[in-house]
C-alpha cells in the first residue's frame, strides 16, 4: 500500500499494532506506519500456537532489510492461529497490512483490555 491508511473498524496500540476484535477473539497485525518505517519485510518469526502473550510485551519479531524489530502485543491472550502464508510471502505485511498481512489470532484473556486501545482517529493523531 503506497498511501497511509488506518481503517475505522480496528483498534490501535501506541507501539503501532492493530487489533480486530471479534467477540472473545482478535486478529493482530502491524499498522501502515509500522510497515512503512520498517521498509521491506523479509521475515516474520511467529510464536507457537498455544503460547500466551501479554499486552504491551513483545510476542514476535519482524525482520526488514533495515532491522529486526519486536512486535508488541496490543492485547493479552493465547495464540490460536498464526498466518502461515507469511513464511513464504512476508511482503504481504507491507502490501496488505490489514488484510493478507495479518500476523496472529488470539483468544482474549481479558476482553475489557480492548477499551484501553485507541480508535483510528486518536492513533492517527499520535503520528503527526
Amino acid at each position, binding site marked *: 500500500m503506497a498511501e497511509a491508511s488506518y481503517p475505522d473498524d480496528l483498534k490501535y496500540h501506541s507501539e503501532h499494532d492493530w487489533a480486530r476484535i471479534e467477540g472473545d477473539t482478535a486478529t493482530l497485525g502491524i499498522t501502515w506506519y509500522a510497515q512503512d518505517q520498517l521498509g521491506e519485510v523479509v521475515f516474520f518469526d511467529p510464536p507457537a500456537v498455544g503460547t500466551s502473550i501479554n499486552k504491551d510485551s513483545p510476542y514476535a519479531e519482524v525482520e526488514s532489510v533495515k532491522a529486526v524489530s519486536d512486535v508488541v502485543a496490543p492485547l493479552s491472550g493465547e495464540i490460536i492461529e498464526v498466518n502461515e502464508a507469511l513464511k513464504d510471502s*512476508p511482503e504481504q505485511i507491507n502490501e496488505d497490512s490489514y488484510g493478507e498481512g495479518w500476523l496472529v489470532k488470539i483468544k482474549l484473556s481479558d476482553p475489557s483490555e480492548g477499551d484501553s486501545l485507541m480508535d483510528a482517529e486518536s492513533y492517527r493523531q499520535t503520528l503527526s
Partner: protein
Amino acid sequence: MTITDNQLHGDPGIEAHEQHPQRSAIVETEQQRDRARTIYEKSKPGRRAFVAPELDVPKHELPERFRRAEAPKLPEIAEPEIVRHYNRLSKRNFDLDSGFYPLGSCTMKHNPKLHERVAALPGNARLHPLQNPKRAQGALELMYELQGALGEIAGLPHVSLQPSAGSHGELAGVLLTRAYHEDRGDHRTKILTPDTAHGTNPATVTMGGYEVVKVGTNADGGVDIEDLRAKADEQVACLMLTNPNTLGVFDTNIEEIAKIVHGVGATLYYDGANLNAVMGRTRPGDMGFDIVHFNLHKTFTQPHGGGGPGAGPIAVSDRIEPYITKPQVVKREDGTFDLDYDRPKSIGRLRGFQGNYGVFVRSYAYILSLGSDGLQEASETAVLNANYLLARLRQLGVTDLLPPAYDRLCMHEFVLSGAPMKRELGLRTLDLAKRLLDHSFHPPTVYFPLLVDEALLIEPTETETKETLDAFADALAQILREGAEDPEIARNAPYGTPVRRLDEAGAAKRPVIRQPL
C-alpha cells in the same frame, strides 16, 4: 525520465539530459553488461597457473588414511586470467583510495601508506606466531609499548591487546564485569545500554548472559538521567556507553552518570567506536569509565571495511586488572619482554596467538608518527570538519529537507533526518544514498541510529580536504534540487555503478548461498 551516457560516466548532472531530451532509455554501462562470473565459471580442465619442478627426491606416498577420496575442486585457470579476474573485481568496488567514504558509525580515515611498509618488514610480517618469546623480543616490545600508549590515551593503566574487533572488546568487557562481580560473591543479572547504542552493545550483553535494559535519550541527545536513576539498581552489572554517542553528541552529564552507576556498584564500560572525536582532549578513565575498548582499525588506522582484520584492545582500571585476559605482555626486571600466564583470576584467553599483530604495527606507527600533539590535532580536525560540513549544509539549504536530529554543536559526526525530504519530495534516505553513488561518493550510514526517522549518520574524518567536503555538500544539494523536479531519477539510482539498485529483500528472502562446482 532521461538518463544519458554523460550521467553514467561520472557526470550525474541533470543539465546533461536536458540537452539530450531524445534519449529516453537508461543506458547500460559496459561494466554493468559484464555480468559477474565466478572464478569457477572461468575454469577449464587442465589449465594451470604454475608448473611444478621435477621430482628430485625419492618418492614417498602419504598413507592411505591421510589421502582424500577425491581431488579438491579448485579452479583450473592460467596466471594472467587469475590476475585479471581479481583486478576486475577490485575495480567493481568502492574504497577509501577511490573517494570520500563518510560512513559514520565506522571511522573511514586515510590509512598512511608508510604503515604498510613497516607492517611488511620481514621481522614483522614473517615472525611465526609460536616463536619463543626470547626470540621475539622486538615484537613483544612493540606490543608492550603499544599497551602503554593506549593506556595513556584511555586514562586506564592496564591493557590487553587480545580482542580482535570492537565487538570482541565488548565481550571481553562484559566477561570482565562478570568476573569482577562474581569474585565478590555478587550475582547481578542486567546491563544497561542507551537506546542510541551501537547494535553490538545489546548483542554482546545477551551473549554474555545478561538481560538488556534500555535507557532513554533526553532532549539534548544524551542519556536521560532520570530514566537511568530509575533503572540503576543492585541487579545492574554495568552501563555500556559511547561518548560522544552515535548521535555525534558529547554527553556533558558523564560525571553524574558515572556517579549513579558506581553508586549501585556497577561498572561503566566505554565503547571506543567514537574515540576519534576526543583523543588528547579527554580520557575515558578520567570520565569515570572502568573498561574501554579501542577500535584500532578505526581510530588508529588500518585498512578495513571488508570484514577485517581489526583489533579491539581493552584498557581497564585497577579494580578490573586481576581478571584481564592472559597471557599478558610484560616487561621483566632484567628489561626483557615476556608472556605472563601466571594470572589465577584471569578470564583466560580470548584469541589464539597474540592478536592481529599487523594491526598493532600500523597503530603503533600511527601513534609514534603523530605523537600526543598530533593525535589531539587529529581529533580536533575531525570535529572541525564535521561542524564545517554541517554548517555548509545549512548554508546551502540542505538542512531544510534534511535537518539535524539534534541541533547543537556536533562532535566528529552528526545525524540528519530525511523525514522532511520523504514528506516533501517523496524521496527516502535510501534513494538519496543510492543517488550519491552516481556522484562518486560512498553514502553515509543510513537508518542508524534507529531512533532518528530516515537517519543519515555522516562522519567526514580529519583526513578530508575542504574541497572534498564542499563537493559532498554540493552533491547533496544537487540531489535535493533534482528531486524537487523529478524524484524518479533518485528513486531509480544508481545508474553508473557496476550493479544498479539491488533487491535487498530478495537477497534476504531467497539467498543464493551455494555455487554448483
